[in-house]
C-alpha cells in the first residue's frame, strides 16, 4: 500500500508574521517549520503503516527551498521517502493552483491513500483536501479524529459542525485529520539518523506537465489589494483582586458596557 502525506512548511506562528509587497505571505519574516496540523497527518499515516504490511509513506510538499525542512521532519518521524515540488513560478499561487499542482503530483505517484492535515496553520483555509477530491475524482473523508484502513476501505470518525459521524470511503481516497487524532511522535535519534539516507525527489512544473502561466500570482483568481497590521490595542485596565475588588470591577465593566 502506498500513502502520500501532504506536508507544508509554514512561518512559525509564535514569530512576527508579515506580508511581502506583492500581498503574499513573507516567508523570510519568521522562521519556518512543519505545520503542526500536518504532524497529525504524518502520525496517522505512520499508525496505518504500523498496522499493515508493506506500507510505503511518501511525504509530499510544494514550496520554495526552505520547504525541504518540513520534509526532513516528516522523514525523521518515519516517512519512507519524500517529493519536493519546487518551482519559482509557483510563488503566489492560490488554493486552486496549489490543488492543481498537488493533484498532478498525486496522479504521478498513484497512491492508494492521501492523508492531509485539516488546514495549514498559515493560510488556514482548509480547502485543499476537498479540492483534491474534486480534481482527482476520489472520495474525501475529512476532519477525522482517527483513521483506519481495512481492505479497500478507509474509515474515520468525523467531528463536524453539528454531528459526530462515521465516514467510509473506497480507496483511492483523500483523508484529512484534526488535532484530536492523537499526539504526534517526536523523531527518535534512530529516526533522525535514518532520515539522512532517505530519498528526496525534486520536481518542477515541467515534471508535472503544468504550464507556468496556469499557476502563481498572475493566475490567481483573487487579488490582495491591501494589508494592514492590527492597530496596537490600548493597554487595558488590570485589577488585582483583593477581597472582591476584582469581581466588583468586572460587574461594573459589564454594566457600563450594557452587556447585562
Amino acid at each position: 500500500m502506498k500513502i502520500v502525506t501532504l506536508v507544508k512548511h509554514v512561518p512559525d506562528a509564535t514569530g512576527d508574521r508579515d506580508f511581502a509587497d506583492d500581498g503574499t505571505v513573507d516567508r523570510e519574516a519568521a522562521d519556518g517549520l512543519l505545520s503542526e496540523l500536518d504532524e497529525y497527518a504524518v502520525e496517522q499515516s505512520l499508525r496505518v503503516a504500523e498496522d499493515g504490511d508493506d506500507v510505503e509513506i511518501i511525504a509530499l510538499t510544494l514550496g520554495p527551498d526552505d520547504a525541504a525542512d518540513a520534509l526532513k521532519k516528516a522523514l525523521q518521524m518515519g516517512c519512507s521517502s519524500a517529493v519536493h515540488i519546487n518551482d519559482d513560478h509557483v510563488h503566489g499561487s492560490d488554493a486552486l493552483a496549489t490543488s492543481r499542482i498537488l493533484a498532478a503530483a498525486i496522479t504521478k505517484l498513484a497512491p492508494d491513500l492521501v492523508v492531509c492535515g485539516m488546514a495549514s496553520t498559515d493560510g488556514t483555509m482548509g480547502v485543499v483536501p476537498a479540492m483534491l477530491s474534486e480534481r482527482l475524482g476520489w472520495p474525501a473523508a475529512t476532519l477525522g479524529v482517527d483513521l483506519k484502513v481495512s481492505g479497500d476501505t478507509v474509515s474515520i470518525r468525523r467531528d463536524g459542525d453539528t454531528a459526530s459521524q462515521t465516514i467510509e470511503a473506497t480507496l483511492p481516497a483523500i483523508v484529512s485529520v484534526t488535532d484530536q487524532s492523537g499526539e504526534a511522535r517526536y523523531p527518535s535519534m534512530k529516526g533522525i539518523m535514518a532520515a539522512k539516507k532517505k530519498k528526496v525527489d525534486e520536481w518542477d512544473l515541467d515534471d508535472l506537465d503544468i504550464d507556468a502561466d496556469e499557476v502563481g500570482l498572475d493566475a490567481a483568481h483573487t487579488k490582495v489589494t491591501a494589508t494592514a497590521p492590527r492597530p496596537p490595542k490600548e493597554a487595558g485596565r488590570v485589577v488585582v483582586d483583593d477581597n472582591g475588588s476584582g469581581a466588583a470591577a468586572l460587574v461594573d465593566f459589564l454594566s457600563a458596557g450594557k452587556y447585562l
Partner: protein
Amino acid sequence: MSNVIVVAEVHDGHVTKPTLELLTLARRLGDPIAVVFGPAADLTGVLGEYGAATVVEVDDPLLGQYLLTPQTEALAQIISAREPAAVLMSATMDNREIAGRLAVRFDAGLITEAVDVTAEGTVQSVFAGNWTVRAEVTKGLPIITVKPNTCAPEAAPVDATVEPAGVSLDAATSGARITASEEKRASGRPELTEAAIVVSGGRGTGGDFSAVEALADELGAAVGASRAAVDAGWYPHSYQVGQTGKVVSPQLYIANGISGAIQHRAGMQTSKAIVAVNKDEEAPIFELVDLGIVGDLHTVLPAVTEGVRKAKS
C-alpha cells in the same frame, strides 16, 4: 439586479443568525436567493423578512447519506441554472469544503472567512487577528465564506416563495459514505460561534467548569474551552476556541484561567471586547484585554455571577 445565492444554515428548524447576516450582506451585491437543504416551507417567513424573495429547496435523501458531495452537486446545478453574481456561505467547517469543491468546478474566485463583504471587495482578518487583508475576486464567480457576527442583520421584508431546486443527484458519484451519525446534543446555551458573549475556561479551572457555566448562564452567553482544557478531557472538543477549534468574534469574550497561547488567541482575538481572569499576572492574555482581573476564578466568578444577578434585579 443580479442574483446572489445565500446558503441558509438551519439548526433545530430555525434559520441561524449568521444566515440573516449573510442575507443582509448579499443585498449589497444583488437580490438574495436563499438555498435551504431540507424542508423550507416553514422558513419562508424569516427568509423573506431579510430579503430573500426566492427560497430554493433541496430536499433529497442523499443529503444525509454522503459527506457534503450531494450538497456540492445540488449547489453546482443551482449555480449553473441561475447564474448568480456571487455565492455567500457562513464560515463553517462543512461550508469551507463545499466552497472549495465549487471553486474547482467553476474555476471560481474563493475567499474564506471574510469579516466584511462589499461590492468593492472583502476584508479578512488573518494571522491570529494581527493583520487585516483587503482582497477582491479578479476571475470567475466570487464564492465567499463569511464569519459570524460580521454585521447586524437588517430586515428588508419581501414575500418569499419556495421553489423546488429541480436538481438530480446521483448516488453512484457521491463520494464518501456516512455510515453512522449522531447529532450533537444541544447544550441549551447559545451556539458558540453565534453568541454575543462567550465565557470560556482553561487550565486554571482545574477541570471544574461550574463557575464558568454559571456566569455564562447568568449572562445568556455561550461556554468555550481552551485546548488545554479539551486535551485534559474537561470539556468536549466541540467547545474548543482556537485555531484548530471554533473561531469566535463575539461582542464580549471573558477568558478564565486561560494563559493566551497563540493558537487560542487566533480563535478569539477579533472579539470586540476582551476580559480575562487569571491568577498569573504574567499571562500573555493580559496583553489583549480591555479589563484584566488578577485573581482566582473560583472566587472571582461566583462573586461576579452574584453581582450580575443583583444588578439585573
